């Protein structure tokens, strides 16, 4: 599958969305895939899903996306343009994929060679990986140890909730959330928290499975999602329900434009999104000013 990207800024349809967005937000908070659940329960149900999938999360990602998820994450980190001395927060980044890439980008040999000595850049880069699920974090810590980064002070693993972060206001240069915002009960709270912890000029980047509109491809994608993926889940991870939840939750998540409006409502500026693989995945980016 070729990687196609369409970058668009979108028209201000805030008004028409305001009345329908409240309804859809409520529906996101009470939907667990295609099932209806109580708001209080959603968090627990999602927690169960990830406890179950944690150990085979990475393998399943590779199988489901044909290895493409790596390219998507590279693109995300490329867009972020990490710099030395950065304070970055990766939310729902349990197994550390994005965090490791950022770490590598900042510490690559090429970068170090080109770095001019500046008082400010002598500050240590700090990458915080926050996840609500301790099992996912453990997998991440293990992978860090395997790479020899077990004791590295730059990577900090924190257990926390995206809707109620334990970080200070205006403390982060960057905030990323890759394939995580879909699982949050109250999206607008997560966005508000993102806005709160970012410094002025800080960037918000969200990589998420999104909606496909292209006629024939949409049907192929639906077929793949509902027929192939749950079977793969059963075969490889021994857990059909979790992967059923996954594909259903993708359909329930707001489409690109609506999500972009929500980001703007949280106070962000220069909200843009880029579709990858025709909309299967979208990267939304914004700046806090």
């Amino acid at each position, binding site marked *: 599958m070729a990687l196609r990207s369409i970058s668009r*800024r979108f028209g201000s349809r805030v*008004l028409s969305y*305001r009345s329908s967005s409240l309804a859809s937000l409520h529906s996101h908070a009470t939907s667990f895939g295609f099932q209806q659940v109580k708001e209080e329960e959603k968090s627990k149900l999602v927690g169960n899903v990830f406890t179950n999938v944690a150990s085979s999360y990475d393998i399943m990602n590779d199988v489901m996306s044909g290895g493409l998820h790596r390219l998507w994450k590279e693109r995300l980190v490329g867009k972020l343009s*990490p710099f030395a001395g950065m304070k970055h927060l990766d939310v729902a980044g349990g197994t550390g994929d994005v965090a490791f890439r950022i770490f590598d980008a900042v510490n690559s040999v090429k970068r170090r060679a080109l770095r*001019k000595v500046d008082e400010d850049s002598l500050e240590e880069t700090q990458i915080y990986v926050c996840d609500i699920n301790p099992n996912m974090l453990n997998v991440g810590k293990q992978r860090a140890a395997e790479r020899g980064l077990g004791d590295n002070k730059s990577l900090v693993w924190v257990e926390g909730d995206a809707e109620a972060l334990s970080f200070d206001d205006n403390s982060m240069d960057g905030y990323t959330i890759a394939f995580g915002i879909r699982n949050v009960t109250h999206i607008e709270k997560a966005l508000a928290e993102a806005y709160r912890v970012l410094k*002025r000029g*800080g960037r918000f980047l969200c990589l998420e499975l999104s909606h496909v509109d292209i006629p024939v491809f949409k049907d192929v994608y639906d077929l793949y999602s509902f027929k192939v993926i749950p079977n793969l889940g059963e075969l490889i991870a021994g857990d059909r329900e979790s992967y059923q939840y996954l594909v259903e939750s993708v359909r329930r998540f707001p489409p690109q434009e609506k999500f972009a*409006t929500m980001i703007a409502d949280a*106070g962000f500026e220069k909200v843009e999104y880029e579709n990858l693989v025709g909309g299967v995945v979208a990267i939304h980016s914004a700046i806090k000013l």
Partner: protein
Amino acid sequence: MYRTAARRLLGAGFTTSRLLRLPKPRPTTTIIPYSYCTSSMESPIGNQSVNPNQSDPTAAREEGHRRDESRKPRAEFQEEQARVLAASLRHVPRLGWTEEAMIAGSREVGVSPSIVGSFSRKEAALVEYFMDECLQLLIDRVDSGLDLQNLIPSERVSKLVRIRLEMQIPYMSKWPQALSIQAHPVNVPTSFKQRAMLVDEIWHTVGDGASDLDWYVKRTVLGGVYSATEIYMLTDDSPAEYRDTWAFLDDRVKDAFDLKKSIQEAKYFAQDIGAGVGKSFQGLMNGVMQTMSTRGGRSSAF
């Protein structure tokens, strides 16, 4: 034509991003948060954007509390970008036209260096900002009474090009890098447009009234002279502040004007020949028409 376009574009301070917004009419392309309605910046297209305060009272009331929080003026992205780039220019002689310079600039302004990641074609953004600024400075110099009256056209052109090139002197050590950035295929459309505007502005100031093929020829030739001088300047070590460069410039401009004269002469020559050939062709056609009409007249007499 270009000058008013230049004014309109540069008035807001940044050419490239404005160019993205130019094809109108089109609905607003950037989302402007509801709480940020009083825009202090001029925005020609943005007027049709949201003004939810009036039209959606219930929603506005609900989120009214957030409006109170945002009493501090929210800077628009373009403004911030311009501020960061302006501050970055000070670091260019030391750090080059690079992300490092922009990161240093953003720190000066008090904004997180992450914002640099969002500039399109990062280093090119800095170079293009500089080119826009220089053009604006040139226009300002001209408007604030530059004395061109006593000079013949070729000398006027020389003077204007010299003023413009002198603005690059502080960055001369890193200018080759800027040129290579401008030459990247991705950046060529914008850099070409900026140079075209510059050349147009210079001709406009010199007092150019041509509107035919001449218009293109003049701008192309001046573009060539400007680029040649710019490159010559890169390796000029002459003692008195680039004296050799200015001599080179004067010579090239004179050549260009001579070339113009020769082209003009060649055109007149071609016209004369054309007229001669045309007359004989016309005579032939007239003869043919007459013959046909008389023959036709005879046949209709029946």
